[in-house]
């Protein structure tokens, strides 16, 4: 019974559909007729209607970069830092950035003066961090290099993350300023200064440390 009902339903829908189709074709024929009368051309040109999708437009909201520079770990000297970043540009002003970096601590002045004494093992001197930050392009404009004008941005950035140092995790705030020089739509050069702030008890008492980073990087938009 149910299947018969269903086939009845299907038949009715089919009938309505065919009727609709016929009605629309006859309507379009009627509509087309007066145009043909007006037109002296024997051959009516066939105009290709291109269907256009917005998705075809190439978007370049992501930016991937590598950077290198100097990292000053409080009490543990200055060393080379290497890292990578990926940024997503939310609007012309705001972007979100995920950053990874690694450096190595050298000896504190106490260790150097004392002769052979070591506060940390070699493995414990590895310093790695990750953070997620939000940047704000404060001065978008042109920079002049010789007679040529290039696009550039000055941005402020701040975020949170984790620092692994002395075999320990430290919740870390970062704050900084950067300059993005954009010679091509798809390519930019960065200069960044960041301060990584976290609490550390490596030297006994708990204290807030400021760890400054100065880097230069290249980025690609995609």
């Amino acid at each position, binding site marked *: 019974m149910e299947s018969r009902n269903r086939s009845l339903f299907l038949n009715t829908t089919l009938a309505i559909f065919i009727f609709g189709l016929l009605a629309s074709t006859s309507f379009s024929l009627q509509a087309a007729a007066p145009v043909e009368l007006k037109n002296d051309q024997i051959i009516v040109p066939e105009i290709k209607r291109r269907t256009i999708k917005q998705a075809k437009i190439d978007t370049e909201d992501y930016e991937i970069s590598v950077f290198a520079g100097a990292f000053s770990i409080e009490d543990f000297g200055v060393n080379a830092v290497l890292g990578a970043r990926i940024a997503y540009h939310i609007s012309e002003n705001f972007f979100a950035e995920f950053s990874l970096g690694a450096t190595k601590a050298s000896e504190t002045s106490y260790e150097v003066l004392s002769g052979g004494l070591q506060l940390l093992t070699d493995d414990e001197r590895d310093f790695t961090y990750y953070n997620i930050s939000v940047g704000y392009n404060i001065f*978008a404009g042109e920079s002049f290099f010789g007679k040529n004008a290039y696009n550039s941005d000055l941005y402020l950035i701040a975020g949170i993350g984790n620092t692994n140092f002395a075999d320990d995790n430290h919740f870390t705030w970062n704050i900084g300023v950067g300059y993005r020089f954009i010679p091509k739509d798809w390519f930019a050069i960065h200069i960044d200064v960041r301060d990584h702030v976290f609490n550390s008890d490596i030297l006994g008492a708990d204290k807030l440390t400021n760890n400054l980073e100065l880097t230069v990087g290249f980025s690609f938009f995609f």
Partner: protein
Amino acid sequence: MLAQQAHAEDEFLEVIVIDPYLEMHTGPAIGYPVTQIVERNKKIKILKRKTDWFKIRTPKNKEGWVHISELSQTLTLDGKKTAFRNRTIEDFRNRKWEIGLLSGNFEGAASLTLFGNYYLTPTLSTEVSFTQAIGNFSSSLMANVRLTAHPFPEWRVSPFFALGTGIIDTSPSGTLVLTVDRTDPIANFSLGANIYLKKRFILRMEYNQYKVFTSRNANEEVAEWKAGIVAFF
């Protein structure tokens, strides 16, 4: 060679300017200077997009950046209105994927969470998340899967509740050697809300109650508050 070029140009979307004129900036932001304009009824090619800015090419082969608000008044070659628009609350109601970052307090420790969420239906989603909690005496890494119910998906402030399970790995702080490293199964119950902000962004706030099934005599209960930004696709 010319034919080839012409073919390559066909790849770009072409539109007709309806506004009296369009202002072309040298870069994709309001701060970049306006160096060219395009007049009404001119055909322009759209080369690429960065955030809300479109790089266009004029019939005279000049290139520049135009804001989306100026392009909403353009027509496609077959006379249809172009539909350049940003995401709205409608897209929020019909979202499929979410990724987000949350930060908060995990029983006194600072926590960071990265998650991905997929909507099976508008009212039910599955989520995978990774959390790092960084405390003074220990730090933990946690992976969770959960099933979330969204009873009012059409509301701008949409509450949800969730049930999940996962594992937690806790290791003592480097300067302490009193506790041992351990990995335990974990179950959680969450309550929270998604608040639609703008474009594709949501503010999420949630409270989690975890039960850690330790190998010791008593199970541990941990409370967590967190909030953060979510992007949907």
